[in-house]
């Protein structure tokens, strides 16, 4: 069978793929755009109706044969549709690619239908959304069977079967239940896969009879039906037997298959097993397979504009046309102040030579690294950051020197200098805690400052960088944790054979009675130390990152005297007993320090906590206080339930309260309301396309103005404290209005006013308001207060 031949086949019709196809069409090259879904730009199609799409990063210019600007979903899709038609783009929808074989000049692309096409070059632009999982039963594609829900308001008085007990299914069922009869099908026995907030709402809806459910139920088939108004018959296997439900619509929300496996089956290599890692690419977006190019989210660029620029550039690269990347001007600006650097390539070269840490990176990765970073040329004596700051960016020294002033556990100060080729700031980055030292610039200093997220992305995608960073940072951590005067040779000796270990919440590091295996240095997270007293587990202490546990058994050569458990996701480094003992033997100053800490521990264990306090700690740990840096608690024995905390929060933040006083758990009169904990490693920051979530120097985790309203942070927050809200034109009451009990007159809304976009809203601890958090200041009885891990144990004792 001879297959059709094209010069370029583009797989995936998201912004990157569309832009590439458009550029190819403009050049008049033979090309084919393949899309698995029945329509182009499927992901954007499935944005909610009327959703406004944003065009971040705003500084980056757009270069593409099709246009794009911030706007409503419908408008953008229409524009693209018209422009693609005008350019004569050759595309095929409902054509999922199942295999790519061959090599540059002769790729064979096999489609799900069995047809194959051949191409000289392939551009993979399939994104990371993955393929929507279908029901995989007869009738899965009947009209009325759908795998997404754009607008729950569009359906009314229908009988709708929702399949899937995860968050998407439950959320859809809840949204639809207001106006429809909804039957929710769950394959499992319980709705344990959904978030707590969804679960609670679902249980309420079930008990009010708004939603019917079938659990442990498997879909058998769907048939077209003519019974009354019903168009579909949904047949399922329930624990009680077969059931047939006549309905108007079946909505299945079964998640998506991540694309990595598929991409790997094409022969594309990823640097490591981490789920966030991206394939290694050349400066021209070419993968390890010559002739196969990757652009867009799959290549690690999740924003629409980036993907469109790359789509354009990749076609030019394939054609061999020299093209200046869209970010050239931006990078030029970054290097503007650096003496003797006249072009971007010179700057990148300097970076590569003077910072060995970055040597394993490709030029493309270095450009991306620089795009996120900034060059700083501090004057002599300028403080880069201070001890106890909450900043978490990473610094590389390009030229000159800095002085680092640190303090160890016992308050002994130490100063050391770092020269070009070194880096600093990695402790804050890794632990998510306050800076452990102060850094001051010396003469002729040139630094590159990289934000946390870019640095983490780099670590995940470049194993070489991670390894180098680990070597150095581990020694520094050991020195800061144990004894700053320990010589380099001893540090290297200790670090050899050190084992990094990770623990999930509740995992046991070691148990009471175990044989001592070494010293546990906590690099990230926190642990609780507990002991069985009179048959009950009593918490003795809470130990946070930057400290160590396990010295008791080591010093006394006895079995472990207590159990240590991770209170939040924790990373430790286990230093071998033998090496620690040897080093202790050789270094009297370290011996003294560890000894004094040992005695202190023995003394404090004598004042063990009461069982009530111990239970309170367990309760608070369960509420995520273990990973919090600053959490709002309410003493319910004092709270008069006036909700002034909420009212004043709303007043301070454009009319939307960022806390829900009544929601949340209570134990022994201590209530944890639904409000931000400002986690050490904020879950919300994990997947923010425009990088809009930051931590300020004082520790507040906040969302900046470039939020695009995608809702990822809301989904990722395990505590349900982020809401999506329309930015209101909020007017505060004047003094006279307050005294006379009046409200400000609402501005009449213009009839044709566009629907405002929803953006993510969360607590910023009133960082921009004099006096600090309003919720605490507005509490008339002093019931509301905030605690951080540093003062947490004092509170509980």
């Amino acid at each position, binding site marked *: 069978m001879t297959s059709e031949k094209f010069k370029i086949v583009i797989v995936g019709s998201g912004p990157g793929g569309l832009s590439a196809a458009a550029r190819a069409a403009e050049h008049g090259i033979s090309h084919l755009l393949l899309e698995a879904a029945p329509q182009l730009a499927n992901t954007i199609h499935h944005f909610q109706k009327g959703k406004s799409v944003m065009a971040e990063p705003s500084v980056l210019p757009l270069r593409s044969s099709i246009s794009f600007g911030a706007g409503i979903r419908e408008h953008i899709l229409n524009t693209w549709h018209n422009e693609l038609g005008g350019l004569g783009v050759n595309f095929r929808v409902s054509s999922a690619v199942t295999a790519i074989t061959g090599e540059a000049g002769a790729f064979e692309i096999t489609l799900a239908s069995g047809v194959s096409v051949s191409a000289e070059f392939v551009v993979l632009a399939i994104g990371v959304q993955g393929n929507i999982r279908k029901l995989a039963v007869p009738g899965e594609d009947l009209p009325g069977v759908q795998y997404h829900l754009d607008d729950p308001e569009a359906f009314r008085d229908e009988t709708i079967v929702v399949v899937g007990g995860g968050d998407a299914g439950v959320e859809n069922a809840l949204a639809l239940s207001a106006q429809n009869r909804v039957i929710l099908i769950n394959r499992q026995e319980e709705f344990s896969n959904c978030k707590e907030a969804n679960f609670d709402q679902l249980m*309420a809806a079930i*008990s*009010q009879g708004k939603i019917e459910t079938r659990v442990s139920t498997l879909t058998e088939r769907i048939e077209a039906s003519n019974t009354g108004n019903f168009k579909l018959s949904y047949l399922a296997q329930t624990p009680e037997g077969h059931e047939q439900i006549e309905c108007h619509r079946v909505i299945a929300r079964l998640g998506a298959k991540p694309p990595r496996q598929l991409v790997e089956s094409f022969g594309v290599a990823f640097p490591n097993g981490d789920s966030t890692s991206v394939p290694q690419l050349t400066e021209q977006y070419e993968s390890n397979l010559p002739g196969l190019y990757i652009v867009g989210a799959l290549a690690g660029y999740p924003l629409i504009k980036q993907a469109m620029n790359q789509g354009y550039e990749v076609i030019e690269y394939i054609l061999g046309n020299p093209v200046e990347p869209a970010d050239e001007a931006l990078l030029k600006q970054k290097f503007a102040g650096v003496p003797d650097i006249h072009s971007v390539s010179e700057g990148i070269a300097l970076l590569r030579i003077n910072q060995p840490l970055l040597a394993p990176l490709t030029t493309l990765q270095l450009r991306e690294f620089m795009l996120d970073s*900034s060059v*700083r040329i501090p004057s002599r004596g300028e403080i*880069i*950051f*201070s001890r106890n*700051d909450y*900043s978490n*960016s990473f610094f590389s020294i390009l030229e000159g020197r800095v002085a680092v002033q640190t303090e160890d556990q016992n308050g002994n100060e130490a100063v050391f200098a770092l020269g070009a080729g070194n880096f600093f700031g990695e402790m804050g980055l890794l632990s998510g805690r306050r800076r452990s030292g102060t850094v001051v610039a010396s003469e002729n200093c040139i630094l590159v*400052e990289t934000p946390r997220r870019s640095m983490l992305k780099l670590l995940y995608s470049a194993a070489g960088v991670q390894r180098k960073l680990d070597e150095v940072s581990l020694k520094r951590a050991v020195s800061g944790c144990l004894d700053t005067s320990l010589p380099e040779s001893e540090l290297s000796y200790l670090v050899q054979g050190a084992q990094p270990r990770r623990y999930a919440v509740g995992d046991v590091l070691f148990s009471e009675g175990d044989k001592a295996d070494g010293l546990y240095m906590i690099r990230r997270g926190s642990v609780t130390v507990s002991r069985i007293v009179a048959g009950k587990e009593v918490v003795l202490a809470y130990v946070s990152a930057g400290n160590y546990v396990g010295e008791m058994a080591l010093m006394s050569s006895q079995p472990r005297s207590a159990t240590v458990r991770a209170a939040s996701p924790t990373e430790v480094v286990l230093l071998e007993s033998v090496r620690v003992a040897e080093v202790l033997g050789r270094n009297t100053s370290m011996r003294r320090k560890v000894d004094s800490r040992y005695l202190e521990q023995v003394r404090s264990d004598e004042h063990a906590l009461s069982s*009530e306090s111990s239970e*309170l700690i367990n309760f608070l740990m369960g509420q995520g206080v273990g990973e919090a840096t600053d959490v709002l*608690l309410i*003493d*319910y*024995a*004092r*709270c*008069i*339930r006036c909700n*002034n905390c909420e*009212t*004043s929060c709303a*007043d*301070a933040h454009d009319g939307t309260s960022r806390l829900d006083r*009544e929601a949340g*758990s*209570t134990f*022994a*009169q*201590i209530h944890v309301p639904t409000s931000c904990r400002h986690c050490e490693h904020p879950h919300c920051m994990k997947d923010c396309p425009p990088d809009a979530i930051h931590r*300020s*120097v*004082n520790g507040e985790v906040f969302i900046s103005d470039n939020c695009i309203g995608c809702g990822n942070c809301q989904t990722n927050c395990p505590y349900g404290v982020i809401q999506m809200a329309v930015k209101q034109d909020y007017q*505060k*009451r004047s*003094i006279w209005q*307050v*005294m006379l009990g009046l409200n400000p007159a609402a501005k009449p809304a213009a009839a044709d006013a566009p629907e405002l976009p929803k953006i993510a809203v969360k607590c910023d601890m009133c*960082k*921009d*308001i*004099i*006096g*600090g958090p*309003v919720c*605490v*200041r*507005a*509490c*008339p*009885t*002093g*019931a509301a207060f905030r605690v951080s891990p540093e003062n947490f144990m*004092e*509170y*509980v*004792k």
Partner: protein
Amino acid sequence: MNKMQGATLLKYKNFRYLKATSALILVAITAYALINPAGGESYGGTWLGYTLGTLSTLIMLLLMWYGVTKRRITGAPDRRDARRQSAPAGQERRKPHTKSRGMNGATLQEWLSAHVYLGASLVVLVTLHTGFHFGLNVHTLAYALMLLVITSGLYGLSVYLNYPRLITLNMGEETLEDLMLKINELDELARTRALGLPDEINSLIAKVRNETRIGGTLLQQLSGKQYNCPTSFGVEQLRILSEKYNRGEQPKIMRDLYSLLLRKEKLVLRARTEVMLKARMECWLYLHAPLGIALLAALTAHIVSIFFYW
């Protein structure tokens, strides 16, 4: 308990406002005793009277300002904001974490603590100001209103100090809505369970469902009781009627119903307690604030008329 509980209203900042008002009262009493207004001739008209009157008026205005502060605690935006944002990342200046900056920076708790002590001090200050002369006139009216405001305030203080703990003990993590949902559920269960039984039981269950009130009139809310509560009545009746309906399946159904109603009765009691505690915690404000306004009016009349005497 634990240190999670900071200082209460009364103990705030180590009794700062108790100390301040005590000193004030002491000075006032000493002055009154020393200057000894010759056998009760001292009206407000003496210089001591004027001083005490003016001071008390100022205190009253400050006390009333609490109502405004409570609604405007938000405070001013940090004006250094603009500068900080323009500074390159990492160069942000540390924000000083001062707890209170004058009156505007004080927490509402501090305001309320001061409000309580200063309010109570008026009993002494204003009584001295009267020189113990009372009559049927606007002056004594203002004085009486003031005492009423203070009395209601003291009641408020006592419920604020005691009731929050009771609310948590009664409700745990649940809200009133949660309880109502459960009660409705039990009603529905009882209704369907009773269907196979004679009308007498069905109408009893219907009565329990339809006539049980949670909340209701002000008196019912404040007392936390419903006279002849239909649920308790139903529980009692079921116990009696179970002797009558004892054939076949009936005893089992009667037992089920009995336990359903018992559960409901417990929930109803909790819900009523919740309503009662909340009502008692709020009701006094409906006296305290309007009486305060009335006091302000009477005080104005008092001051204006004084100047006519002059």
